[in-house]
């Protein structure tokens, strides 16, 4: 009898609630696209969004942008799958999206708030970033100032990176575009 009750509690209550939390918070292959450390909700802001996607954005208090306008990638881990944290330093490195698409990259604390800093620097976008040789994208994520592109993380604790890339509909007859990969997030040091 006790075994039956325990089974019911574990499978029905814990399993049901736990799997729902995971599918809403982290997503699954059905609702998200994962590229390296980045996750994008494929039906964000769409009229036909699935219940998990809807719940994800409602629960977090976000205003979802339609994936017809922009794809929003979110990273809470680095390339080694370690949680992003302000006690570590990172380099975000990769190539920009082709064809002049507008993109932004911002750093937030765990609650989704921008991290206060004396430089008032919270993000870079395709118009404000300094290009590295070879047109590569290189942004340092660190507590203290770094040369070049630097996003301050202060003492925020756990941090989240959000990269939004404008979507442009492909015109008929246009040569197929090279698939673009979001940049890598490499940890360079930890205190």
């Amino acid at each position: 009898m006790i075994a039956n009750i325990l089974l019911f509690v574990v499978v029905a209550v814990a399993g049901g609630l736990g799997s729902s939390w995971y599918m809403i918070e982290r997503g699954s292959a059905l609702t998200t696209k994962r590229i390296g450390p980045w996750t994008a909700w494929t039906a964000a802001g769409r009229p036909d969004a699935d219940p998990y996607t809807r719940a994800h954005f409602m629960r977090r208090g976000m205003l979802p942008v339609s994936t017809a306008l922009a794809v929003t990638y979110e990273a809470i881990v680095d390339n080694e799958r370690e949680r992003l944290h302000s006690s570590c330093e990172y380099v975000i490195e990769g190539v920009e999206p082709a064809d002049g698409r507008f993109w932004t990259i911002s750093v937030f604390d765990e609650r989704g708030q921008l991290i206060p800093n004396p430089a008032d620097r919270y993000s870079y976008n395709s118009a404000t970033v300094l290009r590295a040789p070879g047109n590569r994208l290189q942004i340092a994520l660190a507590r203290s100032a770094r040369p070049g592109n630097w996003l301050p993380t202060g003492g925020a604790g756990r941090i989240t990176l959000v990269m939004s890339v404008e979507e442009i509909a492909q015109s008929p007859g246009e040569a197929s575009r090279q698939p673009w990969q979001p940049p890598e997030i490499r940890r360079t040091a930890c205190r």
Partner: protein
Amino acid sequence: MTTNWFGRLGVYTVLVSLVAGGLIHLSATLVVPQFAKASAFQRLSDGIPVNRMRVLPAASGEAALLPYLGPDIRLAVCRYDVGGGPVALKFQLPHRGWALGLYTDQGDNFYVLPAQESRSADINLTLIPQGERSFSLLTLGGRAPVLSISQIEVPDTRGFAVIRAPVRGKAFEAEIEAQLRKADCSVSRE
């Protein structure tokens, strides 16, 4: 030993637990949007009067109305209510990346209008309750009218119209804010 343990549980309990787990999973997933205490729409409802367009301040470390909203996007928001009659939206989508999004107050984005070079930047739309649509021409300031529908049926009486403008640098901030401030949202008099 293992067989005995499973045998004691009973196939019936296992099946009931799995079915109940599935129901709890579905219920929890569907209920979350109804009970999200700090949804974007509740946050916006607190500071924005009904049927008025408001330009939100640029997000910063000191103030950000919405989570995960960076300073590279500026928003103008109208909390519409078509219960008292159609609501007219007049705004500009002057550059690539600008867009209008219409949301229900449950957060469903049911309509998107991005800026397009082939279309005038000046847009007039009328939001109407479901079932009250009549056909007209999209008003495109100065240009030859394009056969289109300027009336949009909204699925719920209340919702949000959000104009998004990308900020490509500090030098553009004042101009973008001025353009967003021209946007208007009011009960239609037509």
